[in-house]
């Protein structure tokens, strides 16, 4: 198994009508052994910007801490929160700095930009951005997730329907992956509120 499959992860983000949802699994493993079933893979940068980091868990924790540091500096200097597009460029350049000794992480970034327009993107381990209008996926279950999202996604879904869709896509995909699952964690973000929910999934 490759280094990206050492810990196991599943991440997906979807765009809805003036809202977005980002979801992850909750497993932390060491190859086939499950160590924890409450691992946080998605973190808040600010109220309208979330980042999920899949891949090697130690690199995702370190990369997250460095990003929080850079964002706090930005807030002090610019006296405002970073826009999602700007943040995505920051993550991309930070990853490319380590081009010949990369962080083994695939980030999924989701946020509300100007006029609360939803923005999602993903990157590979060395910072190649992939912007999408509908959904982005990452992790060991990514191939299953592509299939599930492609068939379940509809444009312009409201927050509740988006939550249902992303949860079903996540749970059905991780049920075909040995290395991810053991529950789910979903954030649905609208201009007015952030709703965090834990999903009851198969624990095998």
């Amino acid at each position, binding site marked *: *198994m490759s280094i990206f*499959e050492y810990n*196991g992860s599943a991440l997906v983000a979807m765009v809805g009508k003036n809202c977005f949802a980002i979801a992850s699994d909750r497993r932390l*493993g060491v*190859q*086939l*052994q*499950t160590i924890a079933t409450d691992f946080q893979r998605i973190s808040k940068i600010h109220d309208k910007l979330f980042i999920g980091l899949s891949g090697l868990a130690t690199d995702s924790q370190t990369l997250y801490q460095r990003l929080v540091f850079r964002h706090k500096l930005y807030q002090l200097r610019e006296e405002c929160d970073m826009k999602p597009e700007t943040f995505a460029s920051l993550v991309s350049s930070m990853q490319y700095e380590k081009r010949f000794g990369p962080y083994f992480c695939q980030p999924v970034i989701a946020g509300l930009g100007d006029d609360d327009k939803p923005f999602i993107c993903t990157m590979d381990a060395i910072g190649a951005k992939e912007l999408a209008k509908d959904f982005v996926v990452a992790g*060991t279950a990514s191939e299953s997730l592509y299939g599930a999202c492609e068939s379940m996604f509809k444009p312009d879904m409201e927050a509740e329907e988006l939550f249902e869709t992303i949860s079903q896509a996540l749970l059905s995909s991780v*049920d*075909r*992956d*040995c*290395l991810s699952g053991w529950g789910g964690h979903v954030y649905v973000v609208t201009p007015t509120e952030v709703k*965090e*929910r*834990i999903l*009851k*999934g*198969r*624990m*095998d």
Partner: protein
Amino acid sequence: MLDTTALESFPSLISHGINVAGEISAPPSFQLPNSNDFDGFVKETIQMVKPAKGTTTLAFIFKEGVMVAADSRASMGGYISSQSVKKIIEINPYMLGTMAGGAADCQFWHRNLGIKCRLHELANKRRISVTGASKLLANILYSYRGMGSSVGTMIAGWDETGPGLYYVDSEGGRLKGNRFSVGSGSPYAYGVLDSGYKYDMSVEEASELARRAIYHATFRDGASGGVASVYYVGPTGRKKLSGDDVGELHYHYNPVTPSTVE
């Protein structure tokens, strides 16, 4: 005069083993692949099959008989190819075999063993013992040692001497014992099985122990999951006791109370 009909391989009995000229024809064997690098080819097949030992099976002897349990997941590397594989194979009405390793290897050799056991019954007018059946399988697997088959099986049954349990693998090993667990999830199953085991258990207690051991293994091991099947072999023969979906079993053992997230 020694009766060796049960020891000959099945197809040769049809051709009587002797051709018209009075010579004994060569016993049928598997065709070998035409490859320049046979060793490399064998190594590759071993590697292809190796990840398939992702499973949890267990069996133990107790006062009332033998309890056998297994999960039902088949995995290829990280991908789950099936959640509904039958890993407990019914060799005959009083003997069970478990599957760990290559699915094709286990299914084929268990069926072959069932054939040989039936032939033994017909030739000797009595059932074959668990000792004898496991020895037949172990000898066959030993002759194919190093050729890339992957079998980690337990033969469990009830014969004239009472309950019998043997572990047989494709390296040629054969062990008699009271408690075994085979597969990538076996360390977790052993933890639960060893701490809860008592010889004087009732059938209900033993089946609950077996089910819980499989459940704990599916929780911790990524390559085990699906359905926890529990079988019992007693003096009257084999019986399937339960087949519970492990996903639901988790919430049965750990009921969830809804709580708010801050």
